[in-house]
């Protein structure tokens, strides 16, 4: 495909999508780890949906016990690697750090977690092993963080696990949907491989259409299929070339060399959630001259995290509040030329050559999930769309319940 003249160089693109939070050096990690107060009943641990014992893993970094540190993290959160990079720690562990109350910066928990988990990934340390076979078989639908968390713990407990994934690669949104500057697909896949190595059978390119059918072959089923397509705007021009949804845009970026993802010169992103922020910042980083969030409500109403908003502003993205999209205007030659919005001052057209829709995803309606004692559900399809850490927590909790059901005993068996 011929590249428009304004495209950035490959070197510039590499820089734009480099880790937004680069890893700590060993010295920096030790310095940071030694600042941790080692709170009792620590608020950071309480704030984490998987309740990682944060002070414990940080103290282990301070003593040079990185293997032990990673074990503390990964034992309760199989996606500790990706959470270290993509968790909204500002509103979770780091936001709860008691140092905030001493008017200081919180401990850099995410970067310390990355320090420990990178160590075991880089050194190929195997922390977990499959349990003694129980003869029980569990089907898992969806190879995202929820399904694979469930799979890992079921394997540790000795159950046979088959994971069905409709895409070609496992990892779910970790592989396809996290902003590139936070988590790259190769890291996500390496993390997944560690779980698969426990003897999880993975069937990719398989779309499950009936849970009932699985129930005839498996002792239990876990469904972690995530969300469906981006919702429709319901306005004229929505189907024009040059209009795409945020999930598709980000997925293309994450699965191709950067220069192969098309980006407009003037990009408008409709919506103001965290996905909208991911879309607008990445459009800007791809080289859009202007990338603007258009949102029908006010600044205060934006559903995205405050620090995500700050990030987009730092990236030079624009924001139009109280501007309700009415119509996407064709340029007459197979593209778009503007977005008509209604504002307090009347109708207005925002010129643009690309529109990215990020107003949230709907449920996967094609798959019916039956109410059944052997069917368990978790992750985005159960909670309506949350973080990796919530999906991981769901998967871990489901594995415990499935094990209890299969063995009739407690989860320590």
């Amino acid at each position: 495909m011929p590249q428009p003249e304004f495209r950035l160089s490959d070197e510039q693109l590499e820089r734009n999508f480099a880790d937004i939070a680069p890893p700590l050096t060993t010295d920096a990690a030790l310095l940071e780890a030694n600042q941790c107060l080692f709170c009792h009943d620590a608020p950071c641990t309480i704030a984490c949906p998987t309740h990682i014992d944060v002070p414990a893993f940080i103290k282990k970094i301070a003593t040079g016990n990185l293997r032990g540190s990673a074990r503390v993290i990964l034992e309760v959160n199989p996606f500790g690697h990706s959470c270290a990079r993509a968790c909204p720690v500002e509103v979770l562990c780091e936001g709860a750090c008691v140092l905030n109350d001493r008017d200081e910066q919180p401990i850099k928990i995410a970067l310390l977690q990355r320090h420990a988990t990178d160590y075991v990934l880089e050194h190929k340390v195997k922390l977990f092993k499959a349990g003694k076979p129980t003869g029980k078989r569990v089907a898992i639908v969806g190879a995202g963080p929820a399904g694979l968390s469930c799979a890992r713990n079921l394997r540790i407990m000795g159950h046979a696990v088959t994971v069905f994934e409709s895409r070609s690669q496992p990892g779910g949104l970790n592989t396809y949907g996290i902003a590139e500057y936070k988590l790259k697909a190769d890291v996500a896949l390496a993390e997944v491989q560690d779980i698969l190595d426990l003897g999880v059978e993975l069937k990719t390119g398989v779309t499950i259409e009936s849970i009932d059918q699985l129930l005839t072959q498996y002792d239990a089923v876990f469904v972690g299929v995530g969300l469906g397509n981006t919702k429709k705007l319901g306005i004229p021009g929505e189907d024009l070339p040059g209009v795409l949804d945020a999930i598709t845009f980000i997925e293309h970026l994450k699965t191709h060399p950067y220069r192969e993802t098309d980006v407009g010169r003037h990009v408008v992103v409709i919506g103001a959630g965290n996905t909208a922020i991911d879309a607008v910042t990445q459009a800007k980083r791809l080289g859009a001259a202007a990338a603007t969030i258009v949102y029908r409500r006010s600044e205060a109403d934006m559903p995205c995290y405050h620090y995500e908003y700050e990030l987009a502003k730092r990236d030079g993205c624009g924001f139009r509040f109280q501007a309700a999209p009415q119509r996407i205007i064709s340029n007459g030659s197979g593209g778009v030329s503007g977005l008509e919005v209604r504002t307090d001052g009347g109708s207005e057209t925002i010129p643009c050559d690309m529109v990215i829709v990020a107003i949230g995803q709907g449920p996967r309606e094609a798959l019916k999930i039956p109410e059944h004692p052997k069917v368990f559900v978790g992750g985005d399809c159960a909670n309506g769309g949350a973080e990796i850490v919530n999906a991981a927590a769901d998967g871990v909790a489901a594995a415990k319940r499935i094990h209890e059901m299969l063995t009739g005993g407690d989860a320590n068996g």
Partner: protein
Amino acid sequence: MADLRTNFTGVESPNPFWLASGPPTNTYGQVAKAFDQGWGGAVWKTIGEPIINVFSRYGSVDLGQNRMMGFNNIELISDRPIAENLKEIAEVKRNYPKHAVIASLMVESKQKAWHEMVKQTEDTGADGIELNFGCPHGMSERGMGSAVGQVPDYTCQIVEWVKEVATIPVIVKLTPNVTDITYIARAAVKGGADALSLINTINSIVGVDLTTFEPQPSVAGKSSHGGYCGPAVKPIALHLVSAVAGDPSVKIPISGIGGIASWRDAAEFIALGAGSLQVCTAVMHYGFRIVEDLIDGLSNWMDERGHRSLADIRGRALPRVAKWEDLDLNYHLLAHIDQEKCIKCELCWTACEDGAHQAIRRLPRDNGGPVVEIIDEACVGCNLCAAVCPVQDCITMQKVPNDYPAVSWKEYAAGKGKLAPRSEQFHTATWSPSTKH
């Protein structure tokens, strides 16, 4: 501006800060540079028959990211010829006449050898002599250093030999590697010492390499115990200085040594009776430049507190060093938590619960209020919670008044005086952690 001029057993210096005998005082160049930067005096690296050192000489004990909280060495005395050292001492004294220049000496334990060494040293114009009876490694295996300083009779004997010929002040440097340092101090006094300096380094092994199992610092796979120093040893040095300074049979000036790194450390040594101060490890860590804040900080503190000269503060803490049996049993304290300052780390709770007296109650985190509170009837005022609290002045120890006159254990055991009432919950069998939260 406070007057920091120092007269230590007749040796004058512009301030009390001397470099201790060690690697920083090995050459003319180092000592001259140090004097230019503000040091008041220097005790030359110990002179004697030149030795041969090993490579790898120092070991460090780090605390978190703080390097060299403790430090040790297996270096011996000067490896330079005696004549060269003496020539440079003379040169320093000639060029810096107002600074204290002390020669540290160590020779074999023979009267003639000491006489000869002392005479040669006096020819340099040095202000004083320090006898190294403290070095705990290497030289002690050859019957010198701490091998002398650990035996009162040897100490006394050699001081006598030195005093037979010395006309300048003689300072005896004491080793802490003894059961009771005051015995050695008295022996030095008996031998005629003009002053004492303490402490020399403490016998130590700083660590073991867990890959090779080599003790540190390693010399071709083996190590030897070395002399421990640095900030970690300050409390030991303060105690020993106070023990010697408080001994009524000593009564000669003391030069304080041991982990001094800041003016605060210096002020504490002076308050416990030191007449001058010697610094080595802090200089090895940060260089001669630290003397600027030693002087500036001490001087500002003295000005703020209205102390005009070092004599105003010297020994001020000494009368407050008491025997345990003389402490007041009716002085009661209670920990107090300033809930406004509390950051809810619960370190006080876990310390008190597991490590002390189970006198802090934990409240649910989700109730929005305090998460810890002192159980007054169980608190023994031990200070542990205040010690672990990471917030300045959040936990304070407050006096609980009572109407009972002070009573010491000595008095109480002799049937005199009455104990103020104490909670029955202090360490009673019925007061277990599980009953309280």
